[in-house]
């Protein structure tokens, strides 16, 4: 049977999270800090626009790129919020979440054997999607620099086959935000060696106490950066499946060919809802952001009090403390925490190089549960 399946797919490593998932799903009374999405429902005004679209029969396909009105709204939003400018007619493609955008961007860029540099620990989809696109993953361990990729560490792995560098800032799983000075240096490297920066900025709105710079806003970035963003995290819209890819017209035109054949278009009701999100959802976005920030502060203090070291996450809704001092591997730690204290976290090892010795805790959880989970983790660590 397996011989009838693609070698490429069979060669993909299974998701490290899978067996964990099966354990947690069956069990009751577990507090999960293992989620990867907002704990808010989509703001009501946005939901009601989606309902309105459905009620008024807006249930068709849209153009492949997406509704022009939605692309225009996103273009204006990106300009206001991140000082980046993309032409809604030719430089923005709406996708089925950032997930699809990552997939088609890699397929658009890569020829067999092309290399993609992935700073790790990283979000889990990049490596497999590079492989599916026929490329080769070049992993870089960022754990020595607080999970911030630096020009020095990249310089040593750049080769003539380097086609792209994936940057995820704010980062899943570490919550770190790449500072502007570093971005400038990374962009200079991309210009010098002529590779693309694929910037996954899906958490760009969820940044605390630092200023966020989009790499796409830097001078000279336009020809070297492909910007990916979406509505899932900022507007608590994970289930709507809407993201977008911004790039020079030639890239968008080529990516749109893949999108056209494999997805056709993003869901129309999500597109209408998204227009409302950028138009009238910003104050709710801000109150959600404040709420994450409060919980971030709480979680950071709690881990510090436990004596676990961590790099304070400036964004997203993850905290990635080191559990090295406990002497346990991240998988054993997570497994025992689950069995003994009924708290689910994600072992850092699933996020690639440099992830071992850490756990990822998502603090987008109800405050009382979060507090309870942290006190159970504290008791667990203390008893080790």
């Amino acid at each position, binding site marked *: 049977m397996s011989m009838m399946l693609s070698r490429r797919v069979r060669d993909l490593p299974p*998701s490290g*999270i899978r067996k*964990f*998932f099966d354990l*947690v*799903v069956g069990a009751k009374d*577990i507090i*999960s800090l*293992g*989620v*990867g*999405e907002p*704990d808010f*429902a989509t703001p009501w005004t946005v939901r009601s626009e989606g309902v309105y679209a459905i009620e008024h029969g807006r249930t068709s396909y849209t153009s492949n790129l997406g509704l022009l009105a939605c692309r225009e709204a996103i273009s204006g939003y990106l300009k206001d919020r991140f000082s980046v400018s993309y032409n809604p007619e030719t430089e923005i493609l709406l996708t089925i979440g950032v997930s699809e955008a990552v997939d088609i961007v890699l397929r658009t860029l890569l020829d067999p054997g092309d290399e993609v540099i992935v700073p790790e620990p990283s*979000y*889990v*989809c990049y490596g497999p999607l590079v492989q599916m696109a026929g490329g080769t993953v070049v992993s870089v361990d960022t754990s020595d620099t607080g999970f911030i990729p630096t020009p020095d560490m990249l310089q040593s792995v750049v080769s003539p086959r380097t086609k792209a560098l994936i940057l995820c800032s704010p980062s*899943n799983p570490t919550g770190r935000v790449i500072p502007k000075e570093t971005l400038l240096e990374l962009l200079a490297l991309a210009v010098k060696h002529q590779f693309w920066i694929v910037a996954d900025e899906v958490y760009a709105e969820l940044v605390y106490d630092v200023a966020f710079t989009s790499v796409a806003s830097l001078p000279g970035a336009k020809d070297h950066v492909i910007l990916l963003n979406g509505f899932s995290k900022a507007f608590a819209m994970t289930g709507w499946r809407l993201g977008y890819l911004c790039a020079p017209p030639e890239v968008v035109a080529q990516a749109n060919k893949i999108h056209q054949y494999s997805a056709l278009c993003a869901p129309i009701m999500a597109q209408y809802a998204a227009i409302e999100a950028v138009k009238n959802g910003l104050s709710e976005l801000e109150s959600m952001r*404040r709420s994450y920030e*409060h*919980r971030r*502060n*709480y979680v950071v*203090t*709690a881990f510090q009090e436990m004596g676990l070291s961590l790099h304070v996450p400036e964004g997203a809704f993850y905290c990635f403390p080191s559990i090295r001092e406990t002497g346990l591997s991240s998988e054993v730690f997570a497994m025992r925490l689950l069995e003994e204290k009924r708290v*689910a976290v*994600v072992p850092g090892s*699933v*996020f690639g190089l440099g992830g071992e010795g850490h756990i990822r805790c998502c603090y987008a959880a109800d*405050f009382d549960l979060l*507090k309870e989970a942290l006190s159970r983790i504290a008791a667990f660590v203390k008893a080790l």
Partner: protein
Amino acid sequence: MISTPVAQDILKILSKNARLPAADMAKMLGVAVTVVEDTMRALEEAEVIVRYTTVVNEQKMPQMKRKIRALIEVGIRPERDRGFDDIARRIAQYPNVVAHYLISGAYDFLLIVEGDSLEEISSFVSDKLASTDNVRSTSTHFIMKKYKEKGILIGEQEVTERLAIMP
């Protein structure tokens, strides 16, 4: 102390959950517990925080004798040397009046009035309110059901199902 950003954060948090321990709030805001405690005390002393109360859903407690509530629009006949505040002070004093606002539009005051029965409210309106000096007219709307109060939805809460583990 009461005009700092921390004070504003504290007010926002308390308006959602007035029982959150000061120690938790301090961790959330990244400040010392004493800062939270001192700020709260200052807010209380300055009467920015007037009182901590509860939002109650009586529908969940059938055995409890329910209060009857009404919204009452009140028209006022203004008089020389007698402003709205002066008149309002006389009306707001009644214990049946649980909220009292000056409003724009066809009426001048909006009251929320509470009583044990329809009769109690009716007699409050006819005996007390309508006969108060300068009250020109009243229009009473009994409240039949409560959907939201103080920004909090009453009744069925939304449950969203999320995967417990996601990369």
